[in-house]
């Protein structure tokens, strides 16, 4: 009888382990959405996914699908897809969208996964704190991936031509914008504009530096200091130190204008550095946006999330972990020049010896993000560009524009 019982127990155990193994090895497909700034980055993401598929050893296949960032409209596309019952298992993400997605219960709480994750400490604890704060809860809903700190790209040859040295203060920066606006061939027309201003969607990030440089902040956009920062921004355009197309210039336009030599300075992050070096070689450099009364630059963050609709949370986390601290982290940050979140990857010589990375690190202490409110997405995509365009073209005064921006963001 005893023998029989042992035999039955062993049979059950063997059967259970066979089931467990086969369940574990069961192929799983994870659909991942992401955006990329250029075709090279698209190819890199596809390669990372292919490498992960080949090496994870758990039967996980990631299908990476690209969607345009479109000045932030990516988040809305993702939201609509998920709310409509579709969308991916995992996706690249921005912190600003957390309230919207969390309020609708669309994100997987990562606390349990992080508690068991052996690489958790490879990421700076302060980053988890920022992420928790953004969600308005004590939980982590997004997985850190990379950060980008905005700084000023400039052309040393044009600086030399205009007799300008790298600005150390905000006032010097404004002066440089003026001096770098030049008619280089003497035909009476401006060929080079000092500042490549971004007036379309996404332009709020460089604009924020002007507001803070005059002593303003985002909590109250109607203070005299904030209005003075806005006035500086308007004056750059009104005085002709930025291209006349600035009110409608977005990412593609500011980069094209800088690369074609139409502008001497423009503000973007390290993600553009590889393309800049490909175009100019050594004739491109960067400096951190100088401080005035205050100092601020935008910290772009990119995370990844697991959508609640996924049926394969474990596999999805495996993939996000690969992007955060695994080979995917190194490959993506090397290819794009973004600042890694993995402390281990940050120490690699590639990042330690990169001049753009140094400027990013220099800007990190005063880099910040816009207030994350449920109004922020609309404020960024519609209210800010239209209000600033009205101010730039003289339809609104700086004070009135700031009043409208304050109302749009804070509701009062």
């Amino acid at each position, binding site marked *: 009888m005893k023998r029989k019982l042992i035999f039955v127990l062993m049979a059950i155990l063997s059967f259970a382990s066979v089931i467990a193994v086969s369940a574990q090895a069961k192929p799983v497909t994870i659909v991942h959405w992401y955006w990329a700034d250029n075709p090279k980055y698209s190819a890199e993401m596809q390669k990372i996914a292919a490498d992960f598929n080949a090496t994870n050893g758990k039967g996980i296949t990631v299908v990476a699908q690209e969607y345009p960032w479109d000045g932030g409209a990516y988040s809305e596309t993702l939201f609509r897809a998920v709310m409509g019952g579709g969308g991916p298992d995992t996706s690249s993400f921005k912190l600003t969208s957390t309230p*919207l997605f969390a*309020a609708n219960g669309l994100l997987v709480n990562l606390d349990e996964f992080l508690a068991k994750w052996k690489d958790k400490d490879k990421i700076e604890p302060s980053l988890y704190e920022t992420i928790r704060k953004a969600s308005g809860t004590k939980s982590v809903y997004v997985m850190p991936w990379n950060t980008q700190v905005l700084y000023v790209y400039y052309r040393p040859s044009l600086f030399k031509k205009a007799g300008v040295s790298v600005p150390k203060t905000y006032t010097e920066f404004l002066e440089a914008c003026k001096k770098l606006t030049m008619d280089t061939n003497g035909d009476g027309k401006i060929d080079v504009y000092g500042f490549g201003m971004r007036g379309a969607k996404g332009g709020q990030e460089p604009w924020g530096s002007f507001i803070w440089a005059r002593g303003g902040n985002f909590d109250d956009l109607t203070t005299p200091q904030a209005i003075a920062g806005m006035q500086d921004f308007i004056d750059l355009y009104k005085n002709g130190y930025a*291209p*006349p197309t600035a*009110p409608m210039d977005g990412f593609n336009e500011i980069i094209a204008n800088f690369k074609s030599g139409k502008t001497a300075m423009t503000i973007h992050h390290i993600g553009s550095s590889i393309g800049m070096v490909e175009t100019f070689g050594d004739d491109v450099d960067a400096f951190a946006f100088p401080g005035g009364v205050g100092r601020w630059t935008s910290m772009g963050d990119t995370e990844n999330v697991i959508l609640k609709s996924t049926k394969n949370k474990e596999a999805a986390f495996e993939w996000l972990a690969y992007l955060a601290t695994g080979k995917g982290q190194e490959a993506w940050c090397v290819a794009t020049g973004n600042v890694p979140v993995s402390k281990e990857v940050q120490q690699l010589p590639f990042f330690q010896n990169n001049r753009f990375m140094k400027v990013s690190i220099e800007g990190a202490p005063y880099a910040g993000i816009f207030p994350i409110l449920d109004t922020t997405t609309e404020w960024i*995509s*519609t209210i800010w560009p239209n209000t600033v*365009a*009205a101010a730039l073209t003289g339809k609104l005064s700086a004070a009135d524009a700031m009043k409208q921006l304050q109302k749009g963001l804070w509701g009062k």
Partner: protein
Amino acid sequence: MHKKKLSPWPYLLIAPALITIIAVVFFPVINAILMSFQSYDLRRPSQIRFTGLANYFAAAQDPLFWQALLKTIVWVAAGVWFQFVFGFMLALLLNRKFLGRGLIRSISLIPWVTPGVLIGLMWRWIFDGNYGVLNDLLVRLGLIRQNVPFLAQQSTAFPSVILTIIWQGIPFFALMLLAGLQGIPEELYDAADVDGANAFQRFFMITVPSLKNTIFVTTLLRIIWVANSVDVIFNLTEGGPAYSTQTLSVYVFNKGNALNLGYASTMAILLALVLSMVAIPYLKTLFKAQEESK
């Protein structure tokens, strides 16, 4: 006397079409009407509730709504009028016999068959203030000295988007009017010749009256389509700069994109009402004219 037995077949046969129409037309419309009476904002899902006419009152007090409505009227009036005029001219031209007419007829359809998104992107580059071909041409012709940022200044952005929609819609009018022109009996023109009518009289006494119904229907369709058009404007300017190209349909799209579906639905309903106010008298006039001509 036998009572006629009702057969279920007609109902069964019509059912699939009816169900489809209810599902894809009536359900969304009713849903939109219901949403317009709610604070249906997906950014604040916990606050979604019935609010009566609050969205309608908000629209009445929203300066952007009135501005967008005015823009819509100008957009439709200018867009459809010039499409009609140039479309008519093109139809008259294509109705004549000349070498390569078939090829020209096919080529002239290109703007109509090109997707609106592509048209928006294409014209965005044409109008581009830095590298656009329009600026290049105008500079070479000596008409301007410095490039004009067509889409970046409010004074030129709206005319630019209107020009684009005119370009897109001309072939539709041309196609419809050409079909109408080909249906006019040649004998009418022969009789007019015998009576000594000049070209002007032939045009206004024979051509235009014969095309009246076609003109009515085509214009009405274009008014509705142009008023509802989002793709061209959105890809050109997204309604900017400073809302200067934001028509009501673009405003609805922007609000919908911002996930304020209640307010977006309200404005969509109001736009539908405005269009009905144009379409109903228009159709009444058309039907009355048809009755009188019988």
